[in-house]
């Protein structure tokens, strides 16, 4: 699914990712943990195609290089990033946006546009599943949403767009215990042998709900340690200083 080899990324002459390697197979869920400022969001941004980074190394998705692929094309090909800090966008109606987005992705995949009725049904089903108030979708995109509501809205989009490679950037931060469970259930019910997940988190707690196949520690722009769920539990005890 995703093959990252010796990835270096810098922005404004600051080198952030320094030779990062990860390989994710279809159906796998990888967790990335690491101290603040170690480059986790940068990795997520680079995968999404965000402009402004100076990049070297290899980035392959479904066997093809992502080098020349724009942000929107990546999304259309099934890469989804749930943001650490979702952007508030005034003037854009959430529901209209969701439908536009879904139709763009469907069209790129050779499917026909979804009609209004089926869309409403889909929305109803997914919002109910995530315990969201449907009325929120009549509001402007993320504007005035609480921290938790914004995160749920990201997961809603993930559920609706049905991508292949899902990157969750600290989706658990700011969620209350019930919301955390709901979001985790949302992720778990989306898991199958075709989808892959890259879950960025600070808390071992999330990994009790979402079982990772691998856990990586990202520090100073590199993966310094990889292991299974036990690594996360160890980290919880020793902190990042106990690594290396």
């Amino acid at each position, binding site marked *: 699914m995703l093959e990252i080899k010796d990835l270096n990324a810098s922005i404004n002459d600051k080198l952030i990712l320094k030779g990062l390697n990860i390989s994710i197979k279809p159906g796998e869920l990888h967790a990335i943990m690491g101290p603040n400022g170690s480059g986790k969001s940068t990795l997520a941004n680079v995968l999404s195609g965000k402009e402004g980074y100076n990049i070297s190394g290899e980035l392959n998705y479904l066997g093809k290089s992502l080098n020349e692929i724009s*942000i929107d094309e990546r999304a259309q090909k099934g890469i989804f990033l749930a943001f650490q800090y979702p*952007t508030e966008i005034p*003037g*854009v109606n959430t529901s209209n946006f969701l439908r536009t987005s879904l139709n763009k*992705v469907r069209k*790129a995949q050779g499917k026909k546009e979804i009609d209004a009725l089926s869309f409403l049904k889909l929305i109803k089903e997914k919002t109910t599943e995530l315990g969201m108030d449907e009325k929120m979708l009549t509001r402007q995109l993320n504007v005035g949403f609480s921290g938790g509501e914004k995160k749920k809205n990201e997961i809603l989009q993930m559920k609706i*767009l049905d991508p292949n490679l899902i990157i969750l950037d600290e989706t658990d931060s700011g969620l209350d215990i019930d919301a955390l469970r709901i979001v985790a259930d949302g992720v778990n019910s989306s898991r199958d042998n075709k989808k892959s997940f890259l879950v960025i988190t600070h808390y071992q707690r999330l990994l009790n709900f979402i079982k990772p196949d691998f856990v990586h520690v990202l520090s100073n722009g590199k993966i310094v340690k990889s292991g299974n769920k036990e690594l996360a539990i160890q980290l919880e005890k020793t902190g990042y200083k106990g690594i290396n």
Partner: protein
Amino acid sequence: MLNFKINSNEIDKIGKFTKEEKYFRLKNLNHFNDIGFPNKRNEDWKFSDLKEIVSKNFNKLELKLEKSKKPKIDFIKDFEHNYIVIINGELTYSDFKYEEKDKIKLQPFINEDYSDSKKHNPLLNLNHALSDKGYFLDVKENYKFKKVLVIYHLFTEDLDENILNSKNKIKIGKNSELHFLEFTINESKKNFFNNVYEDIILEKSAALKSIYLQNDKSFGYFHKYSRNSLSSDSNYTSFIFPTGHKFNKLDLEFNLEGERSECNLQSASFLDDNVHQEVKTRVNHLFPNCKSYQKVKNVLNAESKGVYQGKIFVKDVAQKTDAYQLSKAILLSELSEFDSKPELEIYADDVKCSHGSTSGNLDKDSIYYLMTRGLTKKESTKLLVNGFLNEVVDSIKSNSIRNFVKNKLENQFINEY
């Protein structure tokens, strides 16, 4: 360089006038001939050098215009309405089928006010000298219009470097209410100049809502000076969507001439190509307890230029004034330009006045977010621009009219982006 001087016999060609009117016209003609089109040295025109614009784009300015045949109007079908049809500035026909006829008087405009001959705006002088068409709509006291009135302004195919001067007047009687849509339909293919003088009078407790909208693009150079007088307890809400012409300057003056009168002005524009557009306002708070609100939004693409000059004047007696003014502009292109000049002149001490002005590029993070959801850069931009401008459109209360305006704006202008 076009040297546009007008011979005084042009006044005689318009018609026979009383001595007083003739003198008024001649005096104004002389003022215009002395100065010509205003240039940027004139403070009111410092961002819109009309002299240069006209001489660059016109070879001549023709005063004479053959009366065109009655063209067919594509009437709006989205909502029921009364209508007036104005062709090249001239009142042609009307239908007030939803109203009580004796409450409304409509006639060609006849100017009886010869007091204004100051040298402040040469285009006003030109209008005073040569105006030969327009209408006067008089709504009697205690009458509320049942349906909206659409004023169709048609500009015909045969216009070719013509200059049109017209005067319109709308008077809303005591306790009366009118909602109108001023809707411009363009069939012309060439340059022309449209110079309008407008007088709007709201008597005590009168209410007026207006929308100014263009159906299609034109090569027209438009200038309108509008003087709006609001008596006590009257209320005027105006939505303007000026985009569509090569050049458009709306010079709007609101005089709050009675206590508790209120005016509300909102504008939204998408400027493309090398369009030049200016909205200039002057709100005069002359009595206590009056309110004014202005919100002007511009999106500028390509080599377009937008200007907003907004002045709030508060007279010493106008205590408890509540005045608000906001200008927001988004520049989509490095070649576009937006100038804004907010001005406050306040002589009363117990007032609430606020103003603000922002201009900048579209938010990069917003575009990035939308693109990560599969929208192209262009689609993301369009969505954001629509959102920015629709905030104004969304304040239109009537569903059918709001949707009509929304569709027009999205189809004719923003979709071209």
